[in-house]
């Protein structure tokens, strides 16, 4: 699937550029995209390093396990394949909480830590996503948000009479998307089979 999407973007991009007579846009876009990617990865070094340190402390203090225990009813349903005291659960819970509060800078490192822990549980091919990873990313990309911080800032900037009016509509849309994502994940998991 990802192969087709990737190829389609490049293919239609080149065709569109050729058709409109500015083929040089493709080369420039390729360089620009690569640079953005490297910049993004480099800027992640700082926050990931910081949050990995904090997470290690939280783990040593027994707080990650405590958090995992609190969320157990929910995580047992969502991640049946992950052992209940596994550090992955703690990281998943922290990632989702940070997402809900609109704390993107903390959410990403937590998510990457969760993925590392889930990868440790990957008994199959290390190149292939496990069902638990797919569920986690379904939750993550549908992104349950309670406070859309960035957009509220922009609304205030452009003189909104009611900048937080969209909080309710956002929570409605994001909740529905999460339900759909989790349901789709469950159905697809069965269609694709448990293995690999």
């Amino acid at each position, binding site marked *: 699937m*990802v192969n087709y*999407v990737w190829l389609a*973007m490049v293919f239609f*991009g080149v*065709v569109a*550029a050729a058709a*409109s007579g500015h083929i040089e*846009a493709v080369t420039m*876009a390729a360089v620009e*995209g*690569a640079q*953005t*990617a490297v910049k993004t*990865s*480099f800027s*992640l*070094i700082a926050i*990931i*390093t910081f949050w*990995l*340190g*904090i997470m*290690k*402390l939280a*783990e*040593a203090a027994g*707080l990650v396990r405590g958090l995992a225990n609190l969320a157990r009813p929910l995580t047992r349903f969502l991640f049946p394949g992950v052992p209940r005291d596994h550090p992955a659960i703690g990281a998943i819970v922290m990632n989702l909480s940070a997402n809900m*509060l609109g*704390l993107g800078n*903390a959410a*990403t490192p937590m998510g*990457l830590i969760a*993925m590392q822990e*889930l*990868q440790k549980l990957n008994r199959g091919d290390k*190149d292939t*996503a496990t069902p638990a990873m*797919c569920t986690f*990313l379904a939750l993550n*990309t*549908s992104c349950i948000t309670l*406070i*859309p*911080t960035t*957009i509220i800032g922009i*609304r205030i900037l*452009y*003189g909104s*009479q009611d900048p937080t*009016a969209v909080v309710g509509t956002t929570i*409605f*849309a*994001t909740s529905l*998307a999460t339900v*759909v*994502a989790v349901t789709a994940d469950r159905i*697809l998991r069965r*269609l*694709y089979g448990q293995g*690999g």
Partner: protein
Amino acid sequence: MYQLLSGISRWAIPAVLLIVPIVALLKGVKVFEVFVEGAEEGFATAIKTIPYLVAMLVAVTIFRSSGAMKMTTRFLAPVLDHIGFPAEVLPHAIMRPLSGGAALGIATELIKTHGPDSFIGNLVSTMQGSSDTTFYVLTLYFGSVGIRRYRYSIISGLLADLTTLVASVYAVRVFLHH
């Protein structure tokens, strides 16, 4: 309710930074040493994502800069018109799963042009807040642990994005009376 939530949002990280080291210290953890030990892997984790992000962002940028994105918009606009989805917001809907920065740019432009409290302003605000950059998240998260086969993840991610689109139109029309 919003005041309470944004208060929690503002206090969450400082509270974590206060509680975690104190509890660790009380449990006899050597806080500085353990922090450094955990932080050690940060560099490798971030660097590992480079090839995956380069692959994804090169494709996304070509798609956007070449005019292919605009053509897709023109093609899809009449279809979405049927569910009352304005053509102006379509570039945002297409870019949202692909590029967070580009989508935010489009959202800002639309809010500036049409006003934050207009139908389009409220719609694009809702869409921006309620979805994530699906392809970026998948690439980054899977890339950091060397996963190359995403299986069905893209399907559930895109279904969520589609739901967001329809639900946003509905919510803004019904709750905000546009």
